[in-house]
């Protein structure tokens, strides 16, 4: 059978994208989930995998072409003679096939760690006119008598099906391995915990239904963008898991600013701009080594703190589709200039949507700099599973009482939000003070304490 492979529905508002690379050729035999093309969307570049095993009969798109979601990209012959042999073996196990196809169309696991990055598109078949269950086995002729399949009563089998669980994967605790309703529910809980590390500490308070807002005037409803939805989930997660405290402080960066402006003037040709964020990253490279409890993660399940022997800092980037946090890795192994370069590069690529999904994960600490916009002091939300985030506001000239008089000094407001489970107030105060002193007296960084 010739099967059309289409660009699946990736998310809201994604209607089209570009073919970056074609990974197969006509005549190739492909396996299930083997990448067919690289497809660039609003957010990131993704692989479009094959939904079935077969031979590539026709490739209908070309590199560089802009194509739409739903468009057919490749045609695969699923009955190609040389693959039928193995297919027969696969198809003789109806229960396995059902669970495989269920796995195929499971939604993309949303990791609460970072806001949206499209990691891997899961293959879907061309949607039929009527909404049908994902590829049900062709039973038809002889009814499937579920002998030797799950030992579960009809009601329990129905529950499993409604919950989207393959009853044959559930282990039964009853006599003879009988599966009860509770067994099915326990299985579902296990799957949920496995899927994306959704921690057990999700708030269980009942969320009330929204009142009818049109009661008080005109309203306009707009579907949330994918990025927005993912941010929403991420921050809700962080908010409910992390007990937040924000420690505020101010750093006198008058001298740092002079140095910075000088440097940038002298190095105009190199194109590298030293920013406050880049300097902060360098400071944090040392700071997080001195205060490793701010570069860690809390694991309540094992009642432990996990120290991370690497320092990857996420930088909050404001893009037109929302907040994204690309990560610059191994801060401690890079010079300020390297950091500035990496920072500029990743920020730019995040804004123009060419950042890779893997670049949006793995951070140990985050910096959120609102200096470009303005404002004084804010309380950033820790990006779980990290334990701290440094918010930076716009520096401004302030009168500071030094040596008996008021002097104009350039003051940078800093807001350190932290997970109180990992660190206490005193720790945070000390850590932030350390950062301030490093900014004010940078040479202290090189003095052994």
């Amino acid at each position, binding site marked *: 059978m010739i099967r059309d492979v289409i660009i699946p529905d990736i998310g809201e508002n994604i209607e089209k994208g570009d073919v970056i690379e074609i990974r197969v050729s006509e005549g190739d035999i492909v396996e299930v989930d083997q990448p067919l093309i690289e497809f660039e969307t609003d957010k990131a570049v993704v692989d479009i995998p094959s939904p079935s095993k077969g031979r590539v009969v026709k490739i209908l798109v070309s590199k560089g072409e802009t194509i739409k979601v739903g468009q057919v990209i490749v045609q695969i012959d699923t009955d190609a003679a040389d693959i039928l042999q193995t297919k027969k073996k696969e198809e003789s196990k109806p229960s396995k096939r059902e669970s495989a196809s269920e796995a195929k169309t499971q939604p993309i696991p949303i990791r609460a760690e970072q806001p949206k990055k499209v990691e891997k598109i899961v293959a879907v078949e061309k949607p039929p006119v009527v909404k049908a269950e994902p590829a*049900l086995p062709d039973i038809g*002729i002889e009814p499937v*008598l579920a002998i*030797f399949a799950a*030992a579960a*009563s009809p009601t329990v089998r129905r529950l499993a099906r409604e919950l989207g669980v393959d009853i044959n994967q559930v282990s039964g605790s009853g006599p003879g391995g*009988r599966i009860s309703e509770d067994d099915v529910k326990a299985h579902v809980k296990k799957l949920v915990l496995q899927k994306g590390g959704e921690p057990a500490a999700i708030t269980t308070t009942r969320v009330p239904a929204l009142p009818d807002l049109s009661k008080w005037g005109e309203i306009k409803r707009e579907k949330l963008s994918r990025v927005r939805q993912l941010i929403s989930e991420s921050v809700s997660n962080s908010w409910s898991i992390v007990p937040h405290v924000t420690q505020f402080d101010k750093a006198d960066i008058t001298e740092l600013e002079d140095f910075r402006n000088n440097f940038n003037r002298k190095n105009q040709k190199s194109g590298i701009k030293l920013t406050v964020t880049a300097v902060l990253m360098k400071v944090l490279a040392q700071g997080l080594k001195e205060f490793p409890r701010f570069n860690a993660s809390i694991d309540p399940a094992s009642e432990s703190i996990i120290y991370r022997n690497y320092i990857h800092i996420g930088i909050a980037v404001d893009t037109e589709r929302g907040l994204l946090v690309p990560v610059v890795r191994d801060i401690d192994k890079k010079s300020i200039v390297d950091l500035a370069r990496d920072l500029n590069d990743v920020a730019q690529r995040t804004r123009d949507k060419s950042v890779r999904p893997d670049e949006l994960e793995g951070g140990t600490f985050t910096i959120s700099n609102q200096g470009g916009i303005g404002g004084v002091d804010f309380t950033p939300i820790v990006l779980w599973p990290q334990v701290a985030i440094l918010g930076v506001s716009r520096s401004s000239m302030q009168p500071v009482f030094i040596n008996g008089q008021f002097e104009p000094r350039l003051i940078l407001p800093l807001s350190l939000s932290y997970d109180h489970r990992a660190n206490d107030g005193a720790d945070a105060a000390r850590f932030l003070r350390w950062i301030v002193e490093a900014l004010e007296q940078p040479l202290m960084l090189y003095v052994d304490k």
Partner: protein
Amino acid sequence: MTTQLAVIGAGPGGYTAAFYAADQGMEVTLIDPAKNPGGVCLYRGCIPSKALLHVAEVISEANHAKDWGISFSKPIIDLDKLRSWKNEVVEKLTGGVGQLSKQRKINYIQGSARFIDANTLEVEDVSKKKSRQSFGQVIIATGSSPAKVPGLSIDSPLVMDSTSALELNDIPESLLVIGGGYIGLEMGTVYATLGSKVTVIEMTDGLLPGVDRDLVNELARRLGNMFHEILLNTTVVELKEEKKGIKVAFKGEAGKKEQAFDKVLISVGRKPNTKNFGLENTKVLINEKGFIQVDGQRRTKEPAIFAIGDVVGEPMLAHKASHEAFVAVDAIAGKKTVFEPAAIPAVVFTDPEIAWCGLTETEAKRKNLDVEITKFPWRASGRAITLGRTDGLTKQIIERQTGRILGVGIAGPRAGELIAEGVLAVEMAALASDVHLSIHPHPTLSETIMEAAELFDGQSTHFMRARRK
């Protein structure tokens, strides 16, 4: 927007689907050539045959009663009255179902339907008026028709199929039943009890092919006495209409033979009705066995068209159709229901009845499964003895490792009523211990089920078997 559903065919599959869909709030149009819903089952199948079989049972019992000191004289059979009672039964049921259809505000059209395309039907009603209607979804429940023997098509009123046999026009002196399956044996039983000399011809080496032999044997003994002759491994070669009957040429173990019969009943199976209603205008596919191809939700290759019942495959039983109806309607309503029963019971309404569900011993042997078969003979059943009917057997096919009941088979009077407990046991994945720890009332035939389960865990109270464990 309300779902607009058309159901083509109002047999047990079709009307169950229509009723369930209406109860779910869908707008249903039900199309069938008969005045009321009922299909083959109610009009010319399950129901009339069971009515007649009940009469046959009464005649048999009355005859048996002389062993108990009660002698009845040979019954006088008023065929017209019998026929009219049978028709009354059909009327009552079909009328009742018709009422239910009206109560549910179903748009019942007496007529036929043809697909113009996947969503459009051309409906012709009984007054020949045609109309085109569009539907969001269609369920095909067109059922099946008696199969013909290739090469034996002879157009004669003396050659009957199950439909004409049920019309009971007369009681032939001699009747040849071609096909030793359940229809042939049931109809043979009716005619034999009413006075015909019945000969049964079966192509394979046993009656009711596929059914466990020990169950069939309980029946075969009695049928051997009731029927004039049972010819196994025999096929009919030719049928020729003659002046006063049909001359039949058959080929069997003893070579070729010729014999004349007053009437012949051809009961060699049933074929699904898939022709002449425009399926070629849709994406619906028919498989190599002639059934409509469907998935677990009974959806065909055309997403808006479902099919249920005899037209989609074996077993061609009314209760399979009605349960497929629930699945198809659920699927239309967007639910994740799939047709995956652990057991579909089957009943042969001969005397003794035979009923089974789940895994049979025959299947278990074929697949080389690790099972234990327990058998409780009815000669050890108190109730069976009070009925004077010890020609019975209750057996269970049990997973050796776990004690889980995988199949139940029963031969004996009332087997059809008893098998439901077996279905429940298999569906619930009951263990033998669950069944024998459940108190069954005494003295009833249901105790044979309890004791067959006991045999798995040891001995049963009333029957000792040679211990193999």
